[in-house]
């Protein structure tokens, strides 16, 4: 770099920087080799130039004085905070050497490759793990991999694909596309649009506002009175963790009142009679007692949804956190199926990556295609959790987080000796029971952390720290949604390297045959083949979309009628029966209940009344906040200003008898531990619930042991256990449902 003058480059924004999952287009200004501005790209179809606060604060992120800028090795004890700068050569030599030693001595499966939330992380981490030979790629720390994976798994089993509400995202004309229709009703189920300030996979939050402006009415299902709830036609203030019971009662009403789409049900669904029988157990009255939503409102919501044509439904991570997440999402899937809202304009459209391009081979089938049947068969044998959970074995290639932790502790059935930890700050954020994780990981022989900033996790467990680049420091491709965006390296910060570059080079050292490409761009060009563009060509035009009726079957509508969904080209869905399986034959095969059901959270007023008596509040955590992406951005001045304190939100009427005033420091205490937060009183909260934002740590405080940036004082995940994942293996992290009590801290304890 270093050329004079100013230039503007268009690209996609993804991951490091704003941190997010979204697919916005941005225009970055580069002057003298520095990025001086990040604006929205008004010619980009995803958000037409609109942008979130985190992308708009990008300059403060990229040039923050605390950015990790060169590789470091630990020179003191773990947690002591003593680091020495080293060269990339030394860093990669050390990684190669230590990882080879582990592989030779214990086998490649003894090294775990952990990522944080998805984004593009899965690609380069699988890439490295498989080149090394380890099957143990996981979302490290998150019980049941309770984010996105449960819903993808459920929808894949039930209808062979997953859906999102149709906001005309597949058309460059968007809402002006003549085929598109605004949904009459959009159900917004456990989503916090404004708070998330976008960050959604596949569906940007504010598309809901675009649709409201075009006449769409909202049904909002949320325990908290969100902005959307306050604008909704109907708001159901549900008890967390009971979404399955609500969905089943809605199905009960729709079926018993004959409000379903008979033609669709007859032609395209399997097991309607069985479902009809099952939902008889869930009358609105029974569901009202479970969900705390009055029966009349349940009936009203069911009628409103079923009689709207078309109607869309989007839902959020809390459903992945349901006790039986994959069953809950099965129930929701039945709702849009029996009302005939699949793959029609304004309904729920089947969402496949444009042209079928993925940045990495994420389905088991693709992994087989790339690495061969034998390699994959061996991977499945050693992959942690695959032998116990058939759904885990057969959907995606994750090792199961809860069992990975257990195996680190017991070293059985085979030893775990190292952790490659990239895009993951489990001590502050990702993991439930973070202390258990801390104790397990600090005993391992070799740990690498790859990140953009020093974190509590890096301080506590790393032997080697590698500095990663933000998105304009990286060549990559955005593929989890439309359009496909190129991301390109336009600046260099310190000695930072992109995650892709780091893993590419290390993979090549560890297994040259598995990395036949000269560089990352060559690999990207290969992945992009179906678009007909090279990486450079895509970068030049910034984004691309598949045209209507493209043979990849990646553009709606009514693809099941046209034979665009199944590999055999026949009409129908990509399931065993070719239909949407209200009665799920794969679930049955895997020993799971083939029909949806509700199961109470591990702690709840109904399942543990004795705990509820002493801990009379439900703690919700993990709700999004537009200033922060999970545990990121606490050190970015403009963003921290928006949300300066680690808060706990509570209804004023709940606080008054406890003597808690706005701004007071309080303890949140559950059966498993307690954390300190600052009270914010707001009538938007339910009187029997509190909300505590996840991911808090204080970068401005001491990072060494035992403080680790205040993480043990603040991390609410200490109240949540591991090992209580859903019966299917996917889902069940109890992030919305733990019981707690709240009381004021004594003056002398009142820091933070």
């Amino acid at each position: 770099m270093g050329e004079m003058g100013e230039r503007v480059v268009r690209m996609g924004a993804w991951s490091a920087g704003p941190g997010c999952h979204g697919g916005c287009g941005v225009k970055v200004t580069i002057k003298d080799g520095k990025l001086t501005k990040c604006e929205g790209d008004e010619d980009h179809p995803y958000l037409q130039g609109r942008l979130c606060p985190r992308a708009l604060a990008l300059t403060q992120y990229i040039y923050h004085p605390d950015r990790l800028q060169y590789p470091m090795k630990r020179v003191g004890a773990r947690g002591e905070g003593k680091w020495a700068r080293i060269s990339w050569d030394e860093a990669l030599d050390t990684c190669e050497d230590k990882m080879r030693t582990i592989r030779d001595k214990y086998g490649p499966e003894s090294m775990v490759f952990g990522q944080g939330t998805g984004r593009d992380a899965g690609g380069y981490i699988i890439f490295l793990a498989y080149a090394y030979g380890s099957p143990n790629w996981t979302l490290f720390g998150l019980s049941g991999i309770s984010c996105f994976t449960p819903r993808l798994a459920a929808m894949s089993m039930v209808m062979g694909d997953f859906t999102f509400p149709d906001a005309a995202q597949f058309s460059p004309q968007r809402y002006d596309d003549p085929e598109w229709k605004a949904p009459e009703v959009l159900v917004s189920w456990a989503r916090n649009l404004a708070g998330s300030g976008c960050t959604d996979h596949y569906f940007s939050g504010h598309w809901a506002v675009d649709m409201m402006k075009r006449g769409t009415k909202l049904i909002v299902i949320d325990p908290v009175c969100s902005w959307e709830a306050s604008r909704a036609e109907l708001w159901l203030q549900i008890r967390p963790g009971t979404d399955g019971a609500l969905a089943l009662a809605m199905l009960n009403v729709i079926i018993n009142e004959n409000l379903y789409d008979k033609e669709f049900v007859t032609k395209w669904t399997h097991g309607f009679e069985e479902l009809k029988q099952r939902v008889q157990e869930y009358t609105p009255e029974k569901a009202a007692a479970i969900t705390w939503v009055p029966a009349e409102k349940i009936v009203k919501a069911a009628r409103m949804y079923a009689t709207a044509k078309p109607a869309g439904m989007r839902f959020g991570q809390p459903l992945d956190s349901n006790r039986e997440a994959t069953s809950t999402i099965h129930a929701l899937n039945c709702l849009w199926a029996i009302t005939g809202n699949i793959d029609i304009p304004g309904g729920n459209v089947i969402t496949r990556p444009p042209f079928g391009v993925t940045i990495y081979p994420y389905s088991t089938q693709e992994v087989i295609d790339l690495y061969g049947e034998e390699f994959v068969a061996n991977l499945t044998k050693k992959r942690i959790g695959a032998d116990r959970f058939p759904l885990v074995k057969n959907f995606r290639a994750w090792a199961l987080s809860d069992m990975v932790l257990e195996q680190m502790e017991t070293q059985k059935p085979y030893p775990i000796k190292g952790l490659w930890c990239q895009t993951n700050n489990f001590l502050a954020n990702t993991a439930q029971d973070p202390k258990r994780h801390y104790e397990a990981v600090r005993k391992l022989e070799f740990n690498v952390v790859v990140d953009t900033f020093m974190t509590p996790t890096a301080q506590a467990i790393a032997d080697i720290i590698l500095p990663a680049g933000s998105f304009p420091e990286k060549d990559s491709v955005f593929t989890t949604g439309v359009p496909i965006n190129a991301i390109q390296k336009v600046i260099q910060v310190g000695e930072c390297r992109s995650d892709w570059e780091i893993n590419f080079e290390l993979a090549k050292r560890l297994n040259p045959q598995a990395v036949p490409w000269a560089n990352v761009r060559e690999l990207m060009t290969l992945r992009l083949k179906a678009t007909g563009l090279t990486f450079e060509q895509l970068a030049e035009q910034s984004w691309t979309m598949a045209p209507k009726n493209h043979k990849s079957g990646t553009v709606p509508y009514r693809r099941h009628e046209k034979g665009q969904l199944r590999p055999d080209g026949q009409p129908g869905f990509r399931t065993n029966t070719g239909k949407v399986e209200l009665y799920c034959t794969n679930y049955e095969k895997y020993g799971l209940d083939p029909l949806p059901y509700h199961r109470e959270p591990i702690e709840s007023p109904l399942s543990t009344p004795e705990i509820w008596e002493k801990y009379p509040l439900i703690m919700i955590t993990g709700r999004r906040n537009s200033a922060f992406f999970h545990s990121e951005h606490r050190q970015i001045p403009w963003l921290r200003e928006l949300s300066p304190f680690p808060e706990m939100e509570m209804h004023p009427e709940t606080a008054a008898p406890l003597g808690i005033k706005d701004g007071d420091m309080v303890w949140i205490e559950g059966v498993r531990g307690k954390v300190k937060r600052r009270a914010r009183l707001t009538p938007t909260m339910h009187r029997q619930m509190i909300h505590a934002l996840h991911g808090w740590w204080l970068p401005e405080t001491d990072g060494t042991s035992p403080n680790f940036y205040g993480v043990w004082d603040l991390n609410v995940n200490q109240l949540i256990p591991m090992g209580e994942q859903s019966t299917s293996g996917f889902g069940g992290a109890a992030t919305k449902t733990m019981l707690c009590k709240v009381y004021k801290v004594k003056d002398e304890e009142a820091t933070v």
Partner: protein
Amino acid sequence: MNATAKKPVKRMGLLIDYEYCTGCHSCEIACKQEHNYPVGRGGLKLTEFLTERPDKSLRIDYLPFPTMYCNLCKSRTNDGESPSCVKHCQASCIHYGSVKKLAELMESRPHAALFTPI
């Protein structure tokens, strides 16, 4: 647009269509980036209003208030670009224009506020 051409003197302003403002904060940060304002200063200050309806339900309104640091993005609008907050607002609910035009637009909006910061 020819930057040297003399423009008719019109009172310009911002219309906030706060029926749709979600409180996402993009406008505030867009302004800070544009003008490189430090912490504690900005052309907009987002405010939350919670109102109890007669049926006891809550109405949540957000309203970005243009402060004395808003100059209506003079250098951008001189170049024919829209103000940074207008462009980046995720709900597309901030409009820039002459007070006359904005007042006309306001006729059809259920809840809106017109500001003339300079």
